[in-house]
């Protein structure tokens, strides 16, 4: 800007990239919060899933397995204290057995002196397994207690056992990463397509702005949205109704989530570079986010899928994000657990972002 001394009045020199960046970010945030459809799909829609799944798979109260108890003895109060099951008292074993047979209860426990009997309905194997494990654990503890000795090994199982009973523990991190992927993939793709279609990109090209400021401002919007999503969904899941319990360093999930957002954003950029219309872009974005969410175990655990599909699932950034978030949010792990997911997410963003930048077009 030094070649213009011949002109009597100069226009302002190119402004600092930071102020351009801020102005564009402000415009981006304003556009975001004023678009009702976008708000719905980034917040309300995933929230509906969280609520529906949360209710279907049971909140704090409902998630506790109900078992019937008959008789007296040390095991029954111990079961009650374990806080993992809800007990229903029966006067006779026949009554309890009738309920189990009818499928109203998964199992009942009868203590008669030193004999503890567990009768369960094998029709629901998961429940049966759970109850089996639980009751034998309690019985073992009671056995040790009865010897009057301090146990040789102390195992604090109650916490983990209790948490693992609740699907919300698994679902909350998954739904958060799915929601964030919707926000970032759609956000990036639709913005670039609509900016290209409406000639905003051409107009920006004629202004003294660095492409990185334009891109950065949109990234900032996506990161901001991701933070709000995280707070909102964690907040809702923590409600007693859903009963999420966070473990120690749960907040470590946030930085990982931001890395995940970047990787989703790079996918969105790629979609935005290829699609010509908003309709096409949102179709493709849907086609990517939903299968990715399922294959990354955002809704349901992947334990039962074929091994090859397991392998495939590691190709998705969301899988790594999910694992990392689960580790720190509910499995009680620390920052070490984030190392690998973080590196994978950074690498993914770099590669896909690079490709997106290569195929980027200012206009059709």
């Amino acid at each position, binding site marked *: 800007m030094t070649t213009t001394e011949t*002109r*009597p009045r100069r*226009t*302002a*020199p190119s402004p*600092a990239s930071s102020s351009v960046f801020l102005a564009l970010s402000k415009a981006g945030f*304003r*556009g975001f919060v004023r678009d009702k459809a976008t708000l719905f799909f980034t917040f309300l829609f995933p929230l509906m899933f969280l609520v529906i799944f949360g209710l279907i798979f049971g909140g704090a109260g409902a998630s506790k397995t109900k078992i019937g108890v008959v008789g007296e003895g040390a095991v029954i109060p111990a079961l009650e204290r374990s806080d993992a099951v809800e007990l229903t008292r029966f006067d006779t074993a026949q009554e309890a057995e009738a309920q189990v047979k009818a499928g109203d209860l998964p199992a009942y426990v009868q203590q008669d002196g030193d004999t503890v009997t567990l009768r369960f309905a094998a029709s629901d194997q998961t429940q049966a397994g759970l109850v089996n494990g639980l009751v034998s654990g309690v019985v073992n503890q009671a056995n040790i207690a009865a010897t009057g000795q301090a146990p040789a090994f102390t195992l604090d199982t109650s916490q983990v056992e209790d948490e693992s009973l609740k699907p919300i523990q698994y679902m909350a991190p998954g739904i958060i990463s799915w929601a964030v992927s919707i926000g970032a993939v759609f956000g990036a793709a639709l913005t670039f397509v609509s900016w290209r279609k409406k000639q905003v990109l*051409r107009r920006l090209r004629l202004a003294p702005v660095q492409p990185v400021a334009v891109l950065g401002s949109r990234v900032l919007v996506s990161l901001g949205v991701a933070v709000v999503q995280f707070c909102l969904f964690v907040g809702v899941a923590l409600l007693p109704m859903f009963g999420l319990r966070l473990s120690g360093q749960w907040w470590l999930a946030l930085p990982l989530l931001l890395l995940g957002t970047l990787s989703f954003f790079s996918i969105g950029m790629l979609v935005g570079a290829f699609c010509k219309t908003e309709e096409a872009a949102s179709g493709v974005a849907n086609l990517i986010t939903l299968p990715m969410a399922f294959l990354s175990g955002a809704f349901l655990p992947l334990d039962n899928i074929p091994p090859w599909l397991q392998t495939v699932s590691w190709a998705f950034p969301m899988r790594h994000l999910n694992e990392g978030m689960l580790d720190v949010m509910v499995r009680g792990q620390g920052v070490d657990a984030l190392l690998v997911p973080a590196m994978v997410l950074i690498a993914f963003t770099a590669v896909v972002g690079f490709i997106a930048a290569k195929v980027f077009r200012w206009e059709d």
Partner: protein
Amino acid sequence: MTTSTALAVTDIHMSYGDLRAVDGVSFEVAEGEFFGILGPNGAGKTTTLEIAEGLREPDSGTVRLLGEAPWPRNLALLPKIGVQLQASAFFEKLTAREQLETFGALYGVTSARVDEMLELVGLSDKASTPEAKLSGGQRQRLSIACALVHDPDIVFLDEPTAALDPQARRNLWDVLREVQARGKTIVYTTHYLDEAEVLCDRVAIMDRGRILAMDAPARLVRDLEAATRVILERGALAPDLARALPGADQVAQDEVSLTISTRTPAPLLAALAEHGTLDGLQVRTATLEDVFLELTGREYRA
């Protein structure tokens, strides 16, 4: 310095496949000049303008804009040029004021300037209206304000007066004259030949990718040596009588009027005054439309 060249376009060519959108266009625009590019749809006006702005690379030919090459993207040049694209480009969901603020911020412009611009294009009362809810003409005016917000030295406007009502069009003329009065160079395209005659220092008439003629509008019209037409109400004068008047070259009559063509209007008008037939009389001199007709053999169709 007032005579130095703001824009020099030399022999640019641009083809889209087989279509020669711009086929050897050259022109120069002096600093402070108001230059118009006229022509029918598809003439190549937008393409020419976009090449001059540095939005497109020509297949061949050169452009010097304020002494520099606008292509490839020249960051140092951009603050000095203001562009209104033919399709208005706005951010989503922002109000008129916010659009201007955002575009202004790209150039480091303060918000006081934003108010000034809203005032200039008559949108002060629409400042907090979302851009999507503006009328076509209001949006057009906002788009022009966005092009002028950083006080550029040279302004490119692609059909700024399209979609404006007559009042808004005239207001915009005032705005553009004001901009020119501040020493800015304006390059603009239009379909309105009458408007170009009023506003432009010089015009280039384009058709099918070529410039057919380029000069001051008045000179183009004069060089045409087209007849002046004097139009009277039918019945004011008998056609035979009219033919006998001094300077009358041709006389035609239709249901409503009698038209006398002349190359020497002064004696003809004097003679008409003698006959006392000046009531309701109209004089039509040749316009750029006639120039266009003459150059292309086609009626001008906007």
